[in-house]
């Protein structure tokens, strides 16, 4: 699997499966695999961890355009970070990679940290750019909720990285001659017996309003309190097809139901219009809505990260702006006035 001759170095791309299926983060990582390896200057080799995942591995390999090593263990049915770390450690021993790249999920961060600790390698998470600077690898990552971007560098390999979704994706299919892709399965023998999976809740949502809506009116902590929930409903009612959603910040407060949470750990939406009111635009929120066709931010802070992702921004207090918007709309529809 690891080519010995003229090998510029291997870049391990590590994916997770959940009950036999690729996790969303891993599906996304597949699209990024070859560009990531190119940025680093190595040959990508996929590593997929789970139990009975031949099929998932085949499709992951095809989507990424890379060969894949499956690490199989009965305890890997759900993401198992200590097992992932052990399995990848053995592979890293074998091929001395330039980098080991995980998707940026919390389970993968745990696996990355465990691996980094064991092999004494630098661990850099939530990477959104990779380049070379003064002979060292330089990586960009968002800090302070996306308000700032930091550049870190390291001269050590392997680097253990977790990669933000959607950053290095290529729309075109893998270029170059058709590669013959192989999928090879190895059994993992060693698993940490102290991490004991019990059960999985995957609430199947019957509430599909967010996915169906043409317009999503979303609120964050900037909403200020449950008493302002009406403002969202009133705004949503202006549209032909709209649903109300929110950031984790707003849902944790109980201002909106958890089924309406948008982001990495919530729903993913891509409506024609996403109206983000009082949402700061943390990377985990953007993960669930950045594909929206038009993004409009209403925020008191012109430096909020959401403004970097938005097409239009209105710098106003939402408790003033949303009622005004509704009033102007009513005026327009009642009088037939054109605005």
């Amino acid at each position, binding site marked *: 699997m690891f080519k010995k001759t003229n090998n510029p170095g291997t870049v391990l791309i590590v994916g997770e499966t959940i009950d036999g299926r690729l996790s969303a983060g891993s599906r996304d990582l597949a699209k990024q695999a070859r560009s990531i390896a190119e940025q680093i200057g190595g040959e990508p080799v996929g590593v997929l961890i789970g139990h009975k995942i031949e099929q998932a591995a085949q499709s992951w390999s095809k989507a990424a355009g890379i060969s894949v090593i499956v690490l199989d263990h009965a305890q890997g049915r759900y993401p198992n970070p200590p097992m992932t770390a052990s399995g990848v450690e053995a592979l890293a021993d074998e091929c001395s990679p330039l980098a080991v790249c995980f998707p940026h999920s*919390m389970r993968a961060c745990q696996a990355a940290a465990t691996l980094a600790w064991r092999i004494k390698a630098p661990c850099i998470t939530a990477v959104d750019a990779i380049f070379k600077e003064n002979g060292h690898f330089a990586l960009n990552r968002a800090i*302070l909720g996306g308000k700032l971007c930091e550049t870190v560098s390291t001269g050590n390999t392997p680097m253990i990285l977790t990669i933000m979704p959607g950053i290095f994706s290529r729309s075109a299919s893998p270029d170059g001659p058709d590669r013959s892709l192989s999928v090879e399965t190895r059994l993992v023998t060693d698993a940490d017996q102290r991490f004991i999976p*019990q059960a999985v809740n995957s609430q199947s949502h019957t509430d599909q309003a967010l996915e169906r809506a043409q317009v999503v009116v979303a609120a964050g902590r900037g909403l200020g309190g449950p008493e302002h929930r009406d403002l969202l409903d009133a705004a949503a009612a202006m549209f032909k097809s709209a649903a109300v959603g929110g950031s984790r910040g707003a849902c944790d407060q109980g201002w909106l139901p958890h089924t309406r949470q948008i982001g990495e750990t919530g729903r993913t939406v891509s409506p024609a219009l996403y109206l983000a009111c009082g949402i700061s635009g943390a990377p985990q929120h953007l993960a669930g809505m950045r594909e929206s066709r038009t993004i409009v931010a209403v925020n008191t802070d012109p430096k909020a990260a959401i403004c970097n992702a938005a097409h239009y921004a209105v710098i106003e207090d939402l408790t003033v702006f949303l009622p005004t918007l509704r009033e102007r709309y009513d005026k327009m529809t009642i009088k037939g006035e054109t605005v």
Partner: protein
Amino acid sequence: MAFSILVCIKAVPDLASGGELILAGRWIDETAIGWCMNHYDTHALEAALAIKDATPDVRVDALSAGPDRVRDTIRRAVAMGADAGIHLAMNAGGRLSPAIIAMAISSYVRTRNYDLILTGVMSEDDMHGVTGPLIAAALDRPCAAAAVEILPDMSDRSLAATCEMEGGMAEIVRLPCPALVTVQTGRRIPRYPSLSNTLRSRRQLIEQVVPAPIADHMPIAETRRVAFPQRTSACRFIEGTVIEKADTLLRLFNDNGWLK
């Protein structure tokens, strides 16, 4: 038998307090902003205090590593109900890497035997999401990440943690103690300091520990610079009075045929 919990709390820039983010060297001007307890850590502390409320003979300590300013955050943890506060005195003159923090905290923990260590899932300023798992790796303890609920079982000194995965999926895992769990925000709103605990926090000594110098450590990535992000989409800031802004948006909505 007694059960002891250590909660790792970090003092982070309080962006809601209205201070300005001013770049200074490879970091921000720390004097221009206020500090508060990392949001995720308030949830970790709340989780620990909830266990203490529900179970006899549970002790909760709160620890923060950093310069003297973190002592206010530790005091806040005592005011919320922690039994004791510990300050791991580390002067960074900037930021501390998760590996350095994990080494300092793990070597402190080796001197006390905590049954359970809680950290936040992520710090709001550095956003690494690895310090908890690194501490667990350093101590060779089982670790569960992104827990929204923790149920200890004192009969066999284990715990069940409900851990978030993606898209609303959650997994329940069981860990034997001593263990480490990283805590994600959840529906339980962290409590406010009570008057009696606030008074106690003012009197109580916050223990200061100077970590032993770290000899051999994992290579760390060095921060080269921080910057305001480049605008990726050409965002158009809509100008005018509130009414003009509303009208501009309505025109946009109308032109696209989204309005009723």
